[in-house]
């Protein structure tokens, strides 16, 4: 009894330490007013505020308000007009007790060039520099989003969770094609990001797929996959991420025989109603960020199912939506 209590305490302490280590405190970040060149001030304000809102939505940083401190900054002759270099931004960051400062510019040539820098207040180092282009004001939103997506990718170092729901198609090939044909269904994936190292993704998934029977003896097969995979997430370009995953699990197959035809043929080799087979899969999630919280994704996959020395191949394609927390 005493051992169990000690064990419980040990588990609680381990969990607390694990969470403390993996979920670091968010950096306090102040975003300075954007500077404009060759375009009206209102453009800089709009792009700056859009960036502000989108960075807030990522939940990567704690944003601190700069405008409140304007009076103090004025007193210290650090009004923002003219504060374009890193040293000035660093000084401003110290006054705002921020760990990082974000500065930005909008330059109008043929197109609007948006550039932002993330500066570490402690050492004045530029930790990230990002650029994007907008053909016209209607393009500001995607341009800002592509920058913010890169910021999120670079600065979100702690563990975080995402949940995806998708609909998909499967095709039974190899030995599995003897009993099944096309499959349709849906699945749910819970992903844990930045596990073990930055970009590491653990994906746990389940769902259901209904396969058409390949011969008259089997009406349909309901396959319930339960899988776990590990992969690496990479920012490909703009707001597109790619995550190749390799994993394994089981498929619980519930077979519905056609009794009349089964009598007629009587020669199908699967006589069980339910069979559980191990599977291995390779999947590649291609995600497009719509907002920092919502991504659309397309996920081609290739699953190999093992059944008594036989192997079935199940290529598939899923499309769905992911919510990041």
């Amino acid at each position, binding site marked *: 009894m005493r051992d169990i209590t000690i064990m419980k305490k040990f588990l609680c302490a381990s969990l607390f330490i694990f969470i403390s280590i993996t979920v670091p405190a968010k950096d306090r970040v102040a975003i300075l007013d954007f500077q404009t060149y060759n375009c009206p001030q209102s*453009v800089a*304000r*709009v792009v700056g*505020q859009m960036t502000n809102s989108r960075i807030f939505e990522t939940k990567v940083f704690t944003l601190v308000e700069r405008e409140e401190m304007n009076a103090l900054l004025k007193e210290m002759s650090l009004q923002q007009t003219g504060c374009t270099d890193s040293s000035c931004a660093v000084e401003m960051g110290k006054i705002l007790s921020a760990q990082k400062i974000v500065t930005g510019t909008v330059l109008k040539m043929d197109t609007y060039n948006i550039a932002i820098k993330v500066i570490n207040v402690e050492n004045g180092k530029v930790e990230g520099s990002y650029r994007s282009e907008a053909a016209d004001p209607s393009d500001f939103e995607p341009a800002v989003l592509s920058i913010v997506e890169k910021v999120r990718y670079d600065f979100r170092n702690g563990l975080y969770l995402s949940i995806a729901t998708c609909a998909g198609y499967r095709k039974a090939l190899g030995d599995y094609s003897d009993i099944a044909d096309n499959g349709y269904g849906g699945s749910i994936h819970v992903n844990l990001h930045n596990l073990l190292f930055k970009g590491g993704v653990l994906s746990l998934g389940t769902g259901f797929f209904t396969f058409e029977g390949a011969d008259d003896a089997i009406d349909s097969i309901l396959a319930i996959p339960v899988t776990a995979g590990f992969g690496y997430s990479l920012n490909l370009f703009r707001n597109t991420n790619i995550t190749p995953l390799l994993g394994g699990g089981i498929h619980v197959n519930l077979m519905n025989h056609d009794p009349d035809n089964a009598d007629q043929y009587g020669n199908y080799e699967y006589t069980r109603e339910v069979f559980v087979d191990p599977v291995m899969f390779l999947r590649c999630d291609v995600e497009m960020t719509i907002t920092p919280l919502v991504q659309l994704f397309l996920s081609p996959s290739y699953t190999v199912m093992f059944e008594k020395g036989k192997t079935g191949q199940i290529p598939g394609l899923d499309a769905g939506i992911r919510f990041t927390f």
Partner: protein
Amino acid sequence: MYRCINVLIMLIIATYPANAEKNTAVVRLSINTFTSVDIDAALIEKLTSVLYRELVVLRGDEYVLYRKKGGLDKSANRQLAGSVEKIDSVYYITVKVLDGERGEHLFNRTCTADRDNLEKTLKRIAKDIHRVNRIWKR
């Protein structure tokens, strides 16, 4: 035994409606008139009051204050600041709610709207602010 009694007493006090009301009333949101570079002051004033009225309907006037001029009201522990800008025919509305004590953002949203949809957009933002628990609890 005493610990159990203490916990029970605390639970009873916390669930007593009058006290619950008193605790939540501590949070007050001060709405500051929006700012803009080149939109006329009358429209800005009107849009701010649309947001204020909607929040009063949703939360009650004891939680929501309207500060027309001057800097941020330091007596309120939540500050709402916003801006409206216009580029071509599109309006860009930004609304942020700050923790007045720590200067941190609790809500920050930028929306686009055309002239006819300005009020509808602000009402939608008010509903979103109303739903964020972090704003209304200390």
